[in-house]
């Protein structure tokens, strides 16, 4: 693991905090991208939320009942025997049978039917070939790769889907176990080596829904977030078409210098930029980096300043991230950033 430079962390830490406030603030202001299972945005998540409220209601009644018994026990602590029934042992035994066996059975059997027979089908993964769109989502330490149409379009950390359309997500992993979870849309699915798990994504409305890796996957498990962006179907088709194109050719002199620097440095051995010599597959695909709103799997906003900071010293922002500190000068950093900013 790379140790953060002892002289820099405080400043980086403060700026990192500021970044999170910026990202978080944007989230609150835009009113979407929250992560609560209660503010569900799909029929599947809605079904689970309804189940939750019912379970909470019944649980509250059971809890209140048990507490009532205890309070009665306290109030009548000086009188032996049950209230009303007195000292008949049978009354107390009946209470145990009714509340220990009868009522649990009466509650658990319907619960089993509703949740484990009915709702589990409603939220289950679509059968192969029953959806128009399949997205391969691959978990990496610590970011998400999304591949459309057998890799014709590849992006990272922001997964676009058409709204009101059933989407089949095939979840796999490039390294350790991760778990794909977008609480507002559906339940989670683990990404396990050697397995191709599937989960249904569906969004009632266009919007931006935050998700997060929910299986512990190492140092930066905490900073492995992503967004599912649901768009009107036409807009989605346009986006997908654009994603499948090659990277834009840099227009300014600085950007062209940045491209040369990128291709001749370590950058190109890990990152992929369509139509260029950069063919790495270790890090996120940068072909259309500027179309994304955050960097480093939802850790910082994708602005020029943060992009430069990230290229200069990623280990200060996301300690342990696979991207090394390259020891670039600030001038070099800004040259590369100028290039990346053109990758719209």
């Amino acid at each position, binding site marked *: *693991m790379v140790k953060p430079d002892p002289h820099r962390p405080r400043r980086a*830490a403060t700026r990192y*905090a500021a970044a*999170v406030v910026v*990202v*978080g603030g944007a*989230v609150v202001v835009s009113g979407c991208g*929250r*992560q*609560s*299972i*209660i503010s569900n945005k799909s029929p599947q998540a809605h079904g689970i939320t309804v*189940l*939750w409220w019912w*379970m909470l209601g019944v649980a509250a009644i059971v*809890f209140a009942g*048990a*507490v009532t*018994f*205890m309070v009665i*026990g306290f109030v009548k*602590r000086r009188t032996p*025997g*049950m209230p009303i029934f007195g*000292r008949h042992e049978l009354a*107390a*035994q009946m*209470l*145990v049978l009714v*509340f*220990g066996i009868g009522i*649990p059975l009466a509650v658990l059997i319907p*619960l*089993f039917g509703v*949740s*484990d*027979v009915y*709702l*589990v089908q409603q*939220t289950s993964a679509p059968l192969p070939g029953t959806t128009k769109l399949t997205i391969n989502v691959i978990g990496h330490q610590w970011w998400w790769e999304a591949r459309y149409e057998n890799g014709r379009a590849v992006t990272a950390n922001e997964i676009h889907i058409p709204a009101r359309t059933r989407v089949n997500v095939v979840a796999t992993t490039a*390294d350790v*176990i991760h778990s794909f979870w977008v609480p507002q849309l559906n*339940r*989670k*699915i683990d990404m*396990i*080596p*050697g397995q191709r*798990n599937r989960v249904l994504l569906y969004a009632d409305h266009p919007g931006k829904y935050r998700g*997060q890796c*929910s299986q*512990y*996957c*190492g*140092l930066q*498990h*905490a*900073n492995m*977030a992503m967004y599912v962006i649901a768009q009107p179907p036409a807009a989605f088709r346009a986006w997908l078409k654009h994603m499948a194109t090659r990277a834009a050719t840099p227009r300014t002199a600085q950007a062209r210098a940045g491209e040369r620097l990128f291709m001749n440095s370590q950058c190109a051995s890990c990152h992929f930029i369509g139509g260029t010599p950069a063919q790495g597959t270790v890090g996120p695909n940068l072909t259309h980096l500027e179309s994304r709103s955050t960097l480093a799997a939802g850790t910082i906003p994708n602005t020029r300043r943060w992009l430069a900071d990230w290229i200069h010293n990623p280990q200060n922002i996301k*300690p342990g991230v696979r991207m090394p500190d390259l020891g670039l000068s600030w001038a070099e950093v800004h040259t590369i950033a100028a290039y990346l900013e053109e990758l719209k």
Partner: protein
Amino acid sequence: MATVIRPRGQQYVDLLDRVWGERKGLVGWLTTTDHKRIGIMYFFTALAFFGAGGVEALLIRTQLFGPNGHVLSPAAYDQIFTMHGVTMIFLFVIPMTTGAFGNYLLPLMIGARDMAFPRMNAVSYWIYLASGIFMYIALAQGHAPNAGWFDYVPLASKTYSPSINIDYYGWGLIFNGIASTATSINFIVTIFKLRAPGMSLNRMPLFCYAFLAVSFALLFALPSLSVAALFLELDRQLGFQFYTASHGGNPLLWQNLFWIFGHPEVYIIILPAFGIATAIIPTFTKRKMIFFPLVALSEILVAFLGFGVWVHHMFTVGYPTATTVYFAAASLIITIPSAIQLFAWIATIMSGTPEFKTPLLFIVGFILFFIIGGLSGVMLAAIPFDQQVHDSYFVIAHFHFVIFGAAVFPILGGMYFWFPKVTGRMYHEGWGQFSFWCTFVGTLVTFFPMHIVGLMGMVRRNYTYPAGLGFSTLNALETVGAFVLAAGLVSIVANLLISYHKGAPAGNDPWEGDTLEWSTTSPPPPYNYPVIPTVTSPYAMWDTADRELDNKRLERGEGVFALGHRTPGSTVQDAEVDELLEMPPHSIWPPVTALALAGVFVMLLLQHYFIALGFAAVIALTLIGWHRHGAQP
């Protein structure tokens, strides 16, 4: 008037004192085979690890006080949260319940003079201590396990965790498991063979049923963990591929093996708490437990059913519904034996005349927390809901209500309850009640909001979280709660420590307790009872005629067995005395054996396999010494 009147029967007591006396001072503690002294060593060791695990919990909560905390680095956080889990499960709760409470109380409750295998009992303790030190050396070096207490592969494989951290975990748990296995065998044999005459199985206290169930569960669950850890170390150290998908292995094999152990483990943690509750409730409500046979059966059933539910930890791994639905159903069924016990406790409190002293208060807290944790547990058996909140803080809330609220509260209540028996002094009731309210409120404030942040989408095992998702306020509240809870726990320890020096003398039976341990002196003599008691009901201490008869038998020298280091053995079902067992006396060999075993595991850790083999040979030599001394003092 200096003439001391010798009570009749005193000559037998003198003889027993001489035969059962152990060595004095530090050597005495090192060589002891007395289950009570071993229990006390377990108690203080487990308490120390509880302190360590508690400090780790406070560090975690401090780091999560607000968004983007900087108390711990990500690497430190991973080690701390892993060690918190490992410590609380393996180094605190199990040793505290089976090691301290079980060891001290079980032979007393069944009227035996010691455990069936006193030296194996001692070696269990020393192995436990060594395994704890083994894993804490890792933390002191900054190389503590860091893949979580569940240690999922491939994150824990050599490829993704190349340093020694995980090897401490793998070898440490195998090492630790030897102690628990030996203890559970010891309990089973003790319960089956050393019960006082007349204590047939249906007259055995419910506390003992709970420990019998726990011992069987441990015995069958631990091999799965040990095998999983052994495979892990073979993979890591010798390049095997048990868990590597790309080489025909399967990472889910680890998860299955781990949870085949891990779920029975939950009941291993909580069943002793049930046992403690069933000891405290009759005493303070002054009535017998309602539905004794059904409660005993439920204790056994919970341990048994606990083996059939493990996949509910794995509902999100992609198994087909046909597989998961069976485990969901089994998880729901386990509600019934739990609910039977719960309402038997509640009905006993309702129909008795409860006196809400500190031990019973902790049991009331336990009942409330067990209901909360149980209800959220039922919710998690609903597969789609589980798949939503799995690995979120909702799950953390659930299992902390169960294994802190429901498993640790009875331990705390039990500490107060048996303090007079162990020390001969009373604790301070006022401070005891204060400590209850402090820990009760602390527990609620710490863990209840976790349900809510979990539903809001907060993921477990994250060293930080961003602002703006609504987690911040509740997390701050949880951290405040954790410190209130810590204050409550410290006040318990302070109360007991001060009372040990200043408390009022307790006498033999300050509570008018229902089980045999209250009939002997406080603290009990090394041989527990001058006369092996005879038993005619599960509430032996409330059969006053039987106890008076014991005193008369002492005068006649009946049932004293003073002519050697002996305890009577009895038949499994009806507890009729059928043999006289010669108990081995104190010995230095158990700690020496444990030390040699520690050598084996350190060498396995460092991959010096031939030196490990050498230490194994040393163990063989120590065992020769161990058995050569045999029965001779």
